[in-house]
């Protein structure tokens, strides 16, 4: 079953001069797939990821996720879609520093408003347990180490049980040990929970362990 389909995606940068970053990209992703986007710096893989993330809407082509056509929707509709169906893990962990670990994980779920605050808290503890961070739940998130923050960010990405989890070099800023932990968590999520994972990575070890690798060069898919 496909959860994501991108067809004929073209993207241009206009500064400093018109330049085509993505050239007619089409591919599909199946449910439960653990997928890596690899390629040299500047090949357009991050740009593609941000288009897939729905945050970048300045492209040509058609993007569908979960059977829903996302191209042409308003920012607010896309925000609601991200909230329910997508989870994000970034390179620089990006937690809200004023909030506790637990609050950081709970926020997207409170926004979704599907469960009561009490249930959300319970689910947040479950997700934190999954990444082995439940012991730090009440700490201020700025007090954690990088690896710990990244695990909390994964728990946050999982809180609404999204169909797809996207990562922009989720291990790019971590040491070998923490990278392994993150990789194992991703693998578990994909294979046990059947959630789809799409990550951009530079780490060849990380990419090797994935189910599928899409390699890009000069804005085109050269191997998939």
């Amino acid at each position, binding site marked *: 079953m496909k959860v994501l389909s991108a067809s004929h995606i073209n993207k241009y940068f206009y500064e400093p001069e018109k330049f085509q970053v993505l050239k007619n990209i089409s591919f599909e992703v199946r449910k439960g797939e653990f997928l890596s986007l690899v390629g040299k710096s500047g090949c357009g893989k991050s740009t593609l990821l941000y288009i897939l993330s729905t945050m970048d809407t300045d492209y040509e082509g058609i993007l569908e996720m979960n059977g829903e056509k996302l191209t042409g929707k308003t920012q607010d509709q896309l*925000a609601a879609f991200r909230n329910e169906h997508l989870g994000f893990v*970034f390179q620089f962990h990006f937690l809200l520093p004023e909030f506790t670990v637990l609050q950081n994980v709970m926020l997207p779920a*409170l926004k979704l408003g599907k469960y009561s605050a009490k249930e959300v808290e319970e689910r947040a503890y479950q997700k934190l347990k999954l990444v082995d961070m439940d012991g730090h739940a009440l700490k201020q998130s700025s007090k954690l180490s990088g690896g710990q923050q990244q695990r909390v960010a994964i728990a946050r990405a999982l809180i609404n049980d999204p169909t797809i989890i996207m990562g922009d070099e989720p291990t790019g800023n971590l040491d070998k040990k923490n990278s392994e932990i993150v990789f194992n968590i991703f693998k578990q999520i994909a294979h046990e929970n059947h959630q789809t994972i799409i990550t951009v990575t530079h780490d060849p070890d990380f990419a090797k362990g994935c189910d599928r690798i899409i390699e890009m060069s000069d804005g085109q898919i050269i191997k998939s």
Partner: protein
Amino acid sequence: MNIQISLQIAKTHLLTKKKQTLIAMLGVTFGIAMFIVMISFIKGVNKFLEDSALDATPHVRIYKEITSNHPSLIEEANPKAFNVIHHQLPKNELANIKNGLQIVANIEKDPAVLGVSPQIGSQVFFNKGPIPVAGQIAGVDILKEDKLYSIKRRVKSGSMEALLSNPNGILMGTILARNLNVKVGDKLTITTPTGNLKLVKVVGIYGFGIQTVDGVRCYANMSMVQEILQKDKSYVTDIHIKMKDSQAAIDYAKVLKNQYRYQTQDWAEANSAFMTGDKIRNAMVIIVSITLLVVAGFGIYNIMNMNVINKMKDIAILKATGFAGKDIVAVFLIQSIIIGVLGACLGLLIGFSLSYLLSITPFDAGDFLAVKTFPVIFNIKYYIMGLAFGVITTILAGYMPARKASKIDPVAILRG
């Protein structure tokens, strides 16, 4: 949109930056406090001046206008001709209101009227020693006059009732009595413009607290004034009217003018200088208050703007995890509103305390005004206005940074 979650984020932001929050709040507090003090004080001054002016002036005065501006005989006889008349003089006419007492009786029947007092007014000289002091004498029915101006309450020495039993008695203003150095029981001579003399006895001294009354006016019985002016018993020059509602007097004056064909003057016209002063002071309050609030507003705008710039990463994260633009606007607008409401409430409290202190501060205005402390009005309306101004300013000042926050492109920030 989920307000609760935006509120929670706003609260956390404010509490982690307590100092900054406090400074933004104090800007509003100061503006609102000054607004309250100024409006309470200036409105108090206006009210005080209006009251003291109204105390001594009738709501409506009916009088006969002596003017040279009347058609001449030549014009009446030969209206189509080209007539030139040099130096036209007033006609020799009496300053009285014909059927004055009858008019008084008619007006008294109106239920909207509080009291009517017929008067005979004249310029006189008071002679005590060699120098004549100019003043006015008002022949009145003192009981009717009392109903209009509560003379009895204003008598400082002697008594008002003594005038009833003493046909040659007068009630004298405090400042005039002091200038003439007379006390209750003293006698002095008055001279009318036509040269008649009369020996009168001071039976009481009153004070309105207004120099233009206390320094010139004496009250006497109607019959005595009629006698010294050599007029008959029905001679009346002025009719003073007090209404139950002072605002109704302005229209009532016009009605009376049309009905009796005499000149009328309402209190607002008689005190137009005061009224202009009122307007200027009110305008001043508004200008200064707006200035203060605009300054407070810019303070909030600055702080919220910096806040938004500092929180770019957080905003990007919130957007990535599914917060819509309006949620972000809510997060930052709620912060401004909290700052505005708390700041304004604190400002009201400080404003109230300062105005209270002002209202008990002794203030010596001399003879000119009968006031012992600064006049201050405590009116809930001003406090509601202050709160509303404060909140509206902060919403306006907070909205622009909040909108800017909602427009942040998360991709640009998350990609680094």
